[in-house]
């Protein structure tokens, strides 16, 4: 039996290949010139360059946060390259002109950008290193007035909208990594849903890091106008490398009155090997602002990255707004995850719901860090938090850091937490019914994560479940 376990442990990260493609890559290093270079490369308007430079100057005065429960050697920000783009990507190129090598890369990842083979019902914006290489279903979406394109294109074509909302939820000064991103972000996705429109398909961004020394700093901005609805999915993978790569993304969501935004992530960056060599440092800032009667729902399945530092949050600004956070975070091998959410209740009768499922296996360390803040005017606010941890094996760890701040006495908060261990007895019980060890673990873990999986769009729930199975394979001996 141990032979099969060993085999499974050593199973290759499925997305670990790299694409040999000629790229325009900026030499490593970060200065005002780097920022100007990126902005010039993208023919950006003056206001955006100014915004980037303000962010950069602010970043210089900031310190990398060390409060997360993760450890890693100091990051040399001058060693990373801040821009890399395949040479063959032309600005505004149509999908038919996309380099076959890139199409092939995405096909290997299970994402078809080909007109004929597109995943029906899902529009994809494919981001490769620093640039968007193509966006599908644009014409169909445009009929509804929906804008879905790369960030760079949005700056050119819909500058006013971008200018109005960029940094309105996450200002460039928000935190160290958000400031860095604001200075050097290269591309990402932009999405605008007009008033009263229900987006007819899932929108999705697929991020791929390819270059070895490149950091990825993408930025996503989603604006849901009054009474609109959109469901958005983000996927990410990276080649297997021995070095650590930096990924510092920002996602901003604006949900205007009566709008609903559902944002789901299946994060599968390369996690490094079982000795902790390589893997992505995933330092991400995600936040939404919910106006009157609106709802923002974050669902995340975090299985990759060597280090994850991520707290998708909701500012419940408008009365009766709702914020949700459903999370499954897995830390296996030598992975470290410090993730959770912040729910900031400002409006009256605001509600938030937090369901966090942390799974630690092998030598993984998993921390839930969450904040619920009820401000003085948030009359009748409610929060429910459920925070469960599961341990697989004896060398891993689970930690919980809940912060609660209540400044209005009418608030009702509930917090439930549990820690369980996949025991020999649970596995034996399932084996005694004819299931093998992997099936047994997969069944126990799926059951544990059920409340979160049911929040994912159908197609991705299955993917997430399989991914979890693969991530945990070999963790039971």
């Amino acid at each position, binding site marked *: *039996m141990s032979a099969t376990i060993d085999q499974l442990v050593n199973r290759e990260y499925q997305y670990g290949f790299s694409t040999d493609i000629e790229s325009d890559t900026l030499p490593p290093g970060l200065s005002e010139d780097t920022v100007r270079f990126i902005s010039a490369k993208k023919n950006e308007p003056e206001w955006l360059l100014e915004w980037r430079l303000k962010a950069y100057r602010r970043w210089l005065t900031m310190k990398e946060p060390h409060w997360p429960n993760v450890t890693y050697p100091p990051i040399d920000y001058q060693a990373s390259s801040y821009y890399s783009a395949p040479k063959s990507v032309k600005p505004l190129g149509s999908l038919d002109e996309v380099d076959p090598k890139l199409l092939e890369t995405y096909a290997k990842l299970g994402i078809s950008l080909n007109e004929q083979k597109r995943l029906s019902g899902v529009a994809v914006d494919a981001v490769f290193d620093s640039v968007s290489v193509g966006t599908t279903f644009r014409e169909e979406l445009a009929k509804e007035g929906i804008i879905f394109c790369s960030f760079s294109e949005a700056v050119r074509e819909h500058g006013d909208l971008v200018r109005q909302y960029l940094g309105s939820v996450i200002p460039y000064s928000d935190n160290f990594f958000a400031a860095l991103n604001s200075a050097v972000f290269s591309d990402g996705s932009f999405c605008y849903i007009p008033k009263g429109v229900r987006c007819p398909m899932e929108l999705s961004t697929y991020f791929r890091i390819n270059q070895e020394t490149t950091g990825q700093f993408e930025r996503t901005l989603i604006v849901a106008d009054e009474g609109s609805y959109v469901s958005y999915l983000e996927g990410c993978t990276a080649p297997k490398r021995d070095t650590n790569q930096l990924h510092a993304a920002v996602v901003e969501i604006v949900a205007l009155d009566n709008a609903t935004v559902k944002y789901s992530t299946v994060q599968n960056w390369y996690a490094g090997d079982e000795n902790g060599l390589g893997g992505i440092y995933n330092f991400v800032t995600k936040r939404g602002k919910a106006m009157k009667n609106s709802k923002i729902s974050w669902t995340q399945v975090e299985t990759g990255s060597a280090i994850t530092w991520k707290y998708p949050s909701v500012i419940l600004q408008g009365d009766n707004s709702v914020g949700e956070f459903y999370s499954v975070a897995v830390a296996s091998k030598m992975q470290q995850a410090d993730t959770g959410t912040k729910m900031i209740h400002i409006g009256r009768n605001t509600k938030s719901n937090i369901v966090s499922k942390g799974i630690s296996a092998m030598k993984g360390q998993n921390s839930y860090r969450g904040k619920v803040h009820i401000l003085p005017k948030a009359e009748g606010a409610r929060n429910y938090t459920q925070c469960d941890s599961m341990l697989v094996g004896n060398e891993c760890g689970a930690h919980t850091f809940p912060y609660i701040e209540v400044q209005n006495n009418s608030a009702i908060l509930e917090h439930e937490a549990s820690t369980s261990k996949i025991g*020999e*007895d*649970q596995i*034996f*019980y*399932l*084996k*005694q*019914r*004819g*299931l*093998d*060890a992997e*099936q047994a673990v997969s*069944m*126990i873990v*799926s*059951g*544990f*994560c*059920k*409340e979160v999986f049911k929040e994912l769009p159908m197609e991705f729930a299955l993917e997430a479940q399989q991914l979890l199975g693969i991530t945990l394979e070999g963790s039971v001996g």
Partner: protein
Amino acid sequence: MLEIRDLHASVDGTPILKGITLTVNAGEVHAVMGPNGSGKSTLAQVLAGHPAYEITGGEMLYNGENLAEMDAEVRAQQGVFLAFQYPVEIPGVSNAYFLRAAYNAKRKAQGLDEVDPMEFLDLVEEQLKLVDMDPAMLHRSVNAGFSGGEKKRNEILQMAVLTPSLAILDETDSGLDIDALRIVANGVNALKRPENATILVTHYQRLLNYIVPDYVHVLAGGRIVKSGGKELALELEARGYDWLLEAVA
């Protein structure tokens, strides 16, 4: 069907079974009785392949094959079933899904096609009646929040679905009131076939009023100290275990 010869087993280096010899043929019901700590449950766990127990001597042949060399899931697929003394809870996994996965694992091992959820529901509905279980129980998480009696009935339901050749019932009567006991016993009796065998592990004679054994074995100190017919159980009920333990000592 099952031949146990001079079986020795230990847990964490402590010997528990110290030379068990027992033959179970198809169609037979064997009761294994004994005081607490005599090794009854260990015997059940060892037969089912619990990894915590180390076999230090002797052998167990199941249809002529060495059980010790089979993984627990292979034993299960080949018809060895253990009804647990403490059935394990699996939150978030529905009983129906779990039962079907187990059923299909066995079918797959036999080279048969897996059954889909609809077919399976038809199949399991029949078995539910056997243990007087509400179909709603199928949609609850496996054993989570079940009462003691419900858990035991759920074990018998699994047994009914999986139709084992060798069923080992570990203290299935413990914690049951008289009605639940009767339901469980009726279930076990209804599943009895000439080609199947049952081993009942129990402390009390009570269960044997409902499931009549062909043989009764008394385990003490990791050995079988006395074997007999069903009347031995009644004698134990009347006299307790001490007279046997003294005789051994």
